[in-house]
């Protein structure tokens, strides 16, 4: 709710209108987190590889959250670097979500540092192909990822090479298909 530059106005006659367009006022100044994002991108580029960062942006809707998209082959190395890095120390993985965008998959990691005073969330996204999706596992870096990656494997069918025990966790072992995929058709609709 601290998002001041992004003002949304509501049409008062909302009862009449079915749909309401949210009027977005132009963003004049850059986000206060832009510098943080730039530093993060520089760090990844200089330590990992020039082409490791696919995209970097500020998510204004989510309180100016710095978000970067990492290319999947570099992910494990980047994860280790982010955790060990003296300035960032992103040692707390708070959430992992998998999303099916129909043409590709995306896994989103929300990270936080518990060691530094500057507790800034960072959002990291990895994309995976729709056919044979695979993203390197980061369970060796953050143990939180263990069950979360299993859940994503179970419900979305994304492989996590390097995971110690990649088995179904919510659905039974012999379940067919991955329910959270957008094109999922249950074999037995009665279940």
């Amino acid at each position: 709710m601290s998002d001041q530059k992004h003002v949304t106005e509501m049409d008062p006659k909302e009862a009449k209108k079915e749909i309401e367009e949210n009027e977005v006022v132009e963003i004049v100044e850059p986000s206060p987190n832009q510098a943080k994002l730039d530093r993060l991108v520089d760090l990844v580029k200089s330590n990992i590889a020039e082409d490791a960062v696919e995209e970097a942006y500020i998510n204004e809707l989510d309180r100016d959250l710095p978000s970067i998209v990492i290319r999947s082959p570099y992910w494990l190395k980047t994860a280790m670097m982010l955790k060990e890095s003296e300035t960032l120390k992103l040692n707390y993985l708070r959430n992992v979500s998998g999303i099916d965008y129909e043409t590709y998959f995306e896994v989103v990691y929300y990270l936080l540092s518990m060691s530094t005073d500057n507790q800034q969330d960072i959002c990291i996204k990895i994309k995976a192909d729709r056919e044979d999706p695979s993203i390197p596992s980061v369970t060796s870096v953050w143990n939180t990822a263990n069950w979360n990656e299993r859940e994503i494997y179970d419900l979305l069918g994304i492989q996590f090479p390097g995971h110690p025990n990649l088995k179904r966790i919510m659905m039974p072992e012999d379940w067919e298909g991955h329910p959270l995929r957008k094109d999922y058709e249950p074999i037995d609709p009665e279940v």
Partner: protein
Amino acid sequence: MIRTEELLLNVGPQHPSTHGVFRIIVKLDGEVITEATPVIGYLHRGTEKLAENLTYTQVIPYTDRMDYVSAMTNNYVLCHAVETLMDLEIPERAEFLRLIVMELQRIASHLVWWGTYLLDIGAMSPFLYAFREREMIINMFNELCGARLTYFYMRVGGVKWDAPEGWIDKVRDFIPYMRDKLDEYEQLVSGNEIFLARVKGVGKYDAQTAIDYGLSGANLRSTGVKFDLRKNQPYSIYDRFEFDVPVQTEGDCYARYLVRFEEIKQSLRILEQAVEQFPEDGKIMAKVPRVIRPPEGEVYTRIESPRGEIGCHIVSKKKPQPYRLKFRRPSFVNLQILPKLLVGETMTNLVTILGGIDIVLGEVDG
């Protein structure tokens, strides 16, 4: 010739001390656990999949059923996420009502934990004491929103019901009553030698491990990490109230017990200030379009539920239904540490450690 053999023991899925349908397969060497494999998913209802075909308002009753011991905070995290996406301003009175019910819910949830935890480790009567007080909170909720467990009280933009007349006074009267009862609890249990012998030094882990496993709530604070989302990343109107974040450093089951016990007292402190500052009048709903279509984008909001950090990740495509809705369920994340804690412990300590983590299976399985 005496020969020992490894014993494979299946605990659950139906077992009173697992607090739901949770199964754990333990390998035993005598009485000592050598390996533990939790099996979950018995209560998986596919909330996230169901939500993709429901409007945001329709998803809220489903969140009631996730962490059914703490439905109010679940309601809030979803509403908060949608409100953040839409950049809605919530009326003052609604924010106060939300805060009051969330803190009452925290007390109710901790009371359930306190009662059942002691029941797990062999003390029968604390359970009855705790549920006596919890009943009062539930009666207050019942009067406010018409349900005793699945409240469905909050809506995107505010709350459904205004406080009935005299309700705030009931909350006000409840605070000294509960303080009095807490003293009674302390006399009843906190000094009990048998209880102390069961929990002190059991299920120990350090701050590094807790952070590595992504623990949150009392599980994290019992290791000395002072991290409470109400303080560190304030949401709602928590920044207006004075309260402490209880921290212990030992990281054992006793430390977690003390942290949760102290949290009840802190919640009472917040409630005391909230009923004093409660606005006389005002709206309880913001201006919300009839069909809620948040702008295209992504948001992750997190709040402090009684069990830890509950988060809600929404991917919106400007439709009335969420494109993807993911809940970060604290019980699910906190439970991961269990197999690590159990190795080397005796079978009797399994119940102590599992109860100390404080899980709700509806939330673990999603």
